């Protein structure tokens, strides 16, 4: 057999990639052909040239702060493995021809599965989405880059009112602050995992609103026709004596256990190889067991697993046949690779077949986040989830034992599926999500809940929303019923804090020049009641509704000092301050871990659940790690 000069094998030979028989074969042919030898030399030259140029290529560095953060975490890992061996690394396994064939065929199958998704993903159209830009600037800011700090408060009529996360804004230029509620708590459990493992969490893992919302607060039950109550409290700001903090609290209507509507639940469980560790599949089994134990004959449970193949492990089974459900759970074993796309389709199909009109219809996805979408692109997956959410089957996502970085994908899935997203690191956390707050987890009482606050420039010289960076909405979105927003479950509480600079206090906003063509914005237009601090507006839809309802409250300015604030207020402020210190936020003011511990202790109250006591313990751990 004669080799063609244009055979990839010749290139492979020139680059030293051939072994054994193939290698010998080419050598034999080269002996007889000068042309071939020149060809090989040329190829090797181009290779050498490329290597040389790559070696001389200027390389980008990570941002300095990011380097430090990663290094601090990486150093222990580095010392245990040998640096020198990394670079001059050859593949150490001698591949037998048979083994090679096996590998080839496996890789070929994988490639065939992946190619459609890959080509879609790669046909790139570079588009800057506002959300990503926001994220980038948030990252830049969190790791200390000042580059876009000055873009802060343009009178921005498109995209978001403010581009950066949480700058102080002037109500003269940005009177409206609009965001979607977020009942997720995953960030808190994730931060707890980091601290319990003896590391400070990466700053980007700290989403302050999820920290604050992890804790229940004693807001009153709704007494009117709305499915939730709204509480607003304004008092002094603990980390800046001149400022004030406004706390907005929502409390979803409680639904007694016996009044829980019949539930049609489909557990969609990732049983891929990576799920083997104790804090993954074994914890999932124990966690779901807690949930199953509360179900009754009104309810039904099905189990779908996904790995290399997906399958219905348990057909819809009545909640009183606990033994049958539990033994199906017990039999699950980890093994195989992940193909989430197919599994999720099957889970939804099962839920649809068993749909309970007027009941709870929900898919509960349990995974470590290695959600390989297989033949389905993530775009299609999101569309499927949105589609099914419209049809009444909601999605809850529970992350187990994963590294932080997949959580944006999971959060997004839950978000699109009108669901909630929890991170379950311990059996205690499972008890909180599946037992104590079971109704909140399962029953959505209002969807697409949006908040818009209008600040009165007579009373407020600047304001800042603490957290909710990835939940900001454009002011126009508030009245747009097509814009998706967060859901609130039975008994859920949602808390948002604003830091407010009262009028008369100097505030150096990175301002813009006075505008020439606007009605002079520096002089507040008279006529509105000057005693009002702000107006809080909420929009929500019934779980099965398509049009939103509006709720509106004016809030009077108050002079309450911090010391007179309620315990819940103090505790929420302590949690916010903790988040800001962890993120090294430029807005943390005088907050330190010590100050957080003090505030938190003042606001702890009776703490029947023990969550707040645990928080204080975490603050101590964080402080010890900071040294």
């Amino acid at each position: 057999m004669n080799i063609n000069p244009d055979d990839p094998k010749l290139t492979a030979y020139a680059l030293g990639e051939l072994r054994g028989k193939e290698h010998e074969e080419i050598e034999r042919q080269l002996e007889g052909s000068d042309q071939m030898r020149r060809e090989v030399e040329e190829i090797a030259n181009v290779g050498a040239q490329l290597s040389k140029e790559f070696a001389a290529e200027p390389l980008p560095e990570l941002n300095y702060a990011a380097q430090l953060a990663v290094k601090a975490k990486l150093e222990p890992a580095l010392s245990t493995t040998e640096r020198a061996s990394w670079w001059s690394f050859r593949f150490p396994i001698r591949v037998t021809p048979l083994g090679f064939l096996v590998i080839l065929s496996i890789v070929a199958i994988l490639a065939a599965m992946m190619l459609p998704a890959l080509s879609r993903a790669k046909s790139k159209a570079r588009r800057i989405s506002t959300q990503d830009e926001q994220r980038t600037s948030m990252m830049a800011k969190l790791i200390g880059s000042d580059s876009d700090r000055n873009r802060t408060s343009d009178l921005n009529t498109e995209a978001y009112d403010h581009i950066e996360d949480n700058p102080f804004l002037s109500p003269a230029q940005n009177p409206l602050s609009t965001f979607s509620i977020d009942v997720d708590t995953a960030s808190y459990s994730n931060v707890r995992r980091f601290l319990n493992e003896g590391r400070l969490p990466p700053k980007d893992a700290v989403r302050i609103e999820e920290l604050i919302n992890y804790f229940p607060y004693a807001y009153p039950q709704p007494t009117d026709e709305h499915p939730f109550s709204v509480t607003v409290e304004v008092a002094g700001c603990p980390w800046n004596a001149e400022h004030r903090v406004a706390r907005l609290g929502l409390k979803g209507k409680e639904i007694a256990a016996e009044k829980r509507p019949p539930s049609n639940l489909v557990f969609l469980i990732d049983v891929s190889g990576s799920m083997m560790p104790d804090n993954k599949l074994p914890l999932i089994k124990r966690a779901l067991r807690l949930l199953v134990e509360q179900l009754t004959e009104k309810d039904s449970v099905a189990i779908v697993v996904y790995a290399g193949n997906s399958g219905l492990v348990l057909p819809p089974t009545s909640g009183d046949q606990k033994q049958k459900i539990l033994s199906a759970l017990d039999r699950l074993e980890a093994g195989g690779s992940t193909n989430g796309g197919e599994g999720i389709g099957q889970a939804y199909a099962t839920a649809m077949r068993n749909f309970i009109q007027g009941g709870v219809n929900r898919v509960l996805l349990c995974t470590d986040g290695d959600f390989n979408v297989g033949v389905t692109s993530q775009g299609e997956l999101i569309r499927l989830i949105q589609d099914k959410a419209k049809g009444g089957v909601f999605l809850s996502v529970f992350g187990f034992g994963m590294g932080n970085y997949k959580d944006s994908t999971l959060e997004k899935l839950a978000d699109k599926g009108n669901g909630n997203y929890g991170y379950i690191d311990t059996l205690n956390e499972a008890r909180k999500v599946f037992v104590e707050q079971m109704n909140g987890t399962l029953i959505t009482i209002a969807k697409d809940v949006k908040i818009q606050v209008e600040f009165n420039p007579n009373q407020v010289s600047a304001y800042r929303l603490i957290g909710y960076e990835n939940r900001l909405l454009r002011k126009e979105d508030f009245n747009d019923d097509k814009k998706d927003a967060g859901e609130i479950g039975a008994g859920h509480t949602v808390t948002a804090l604003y830091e407010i600079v009262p009028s008369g206090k100097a505030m150096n906003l990175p301002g813009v020049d006075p505008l020439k063509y606007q009605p002079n914005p520096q002089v507040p237009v008279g006529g509105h009641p000057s005693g009002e601090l702000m107006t809080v507006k909420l929009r929500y839809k019934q779980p099965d509704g398509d049009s939103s309802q509006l709720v509106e409250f004016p809030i009077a300015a108050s002079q309450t000092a911090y010391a007179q604030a309620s315990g819940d207020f103090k505790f929420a402020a302590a949690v916010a301050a903790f988040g800001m210190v962890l993120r090294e936020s430029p807005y943390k003011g005088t907050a330190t871990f010590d100050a957080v511990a003090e505030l938190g202790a003042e606001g702890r109250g009776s703490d029947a659940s023990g969550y707040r006591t645990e928080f204080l313990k975490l603050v101590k751990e964080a402080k010890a790690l900071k040294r």
Partner: protein
Amino acid sequence: MDRYAGPLTKYAMLITDDLEVARDVVQDTFIRLCDENPVRLDSHLAQWLFTVCRNRALDVQRKEQRMKPLSDVEMNSQASPEPSPAIQAERREAATEALGLMADLPKNQQEAIRLKFQNGLSYLEISKVMNLTVTNVGFLIHTAIKALRQQMQSKPDVAANRMRRTT
């Protein structure tokens, strides 16, 4: 980390087309590395890093596309978009050298070339990183080198430059 941060960022940029996004991707990759068992990775480190980096970059890229979904028609008509400013700048810098020429190659060929010649990965490792068969990888690299050779020959100054450098 010093050793890999630059090459990983360059590699991620091939997919994300944006330096800052690529940096985020690499940072995520290292953070993920902290959670791995170092003993298990040992000799697989380079392969592991590039695999995780690539998947992460694709995730980010997909997410970005989801924000502004394209219809299939649009997708097809945008198969060869304008090179991004970052790529154009890179081209200007290295217009007379092989790396400059490389920017004209299809993305998957560039990926394979970077993995091979910048990072010294073998075909087998590249096939795992890029989720292709070894034969595919061989074909990508072969085609890329062929194209580079042809272009170098068609531009005498490049060829001369190359001769000077290689001797």
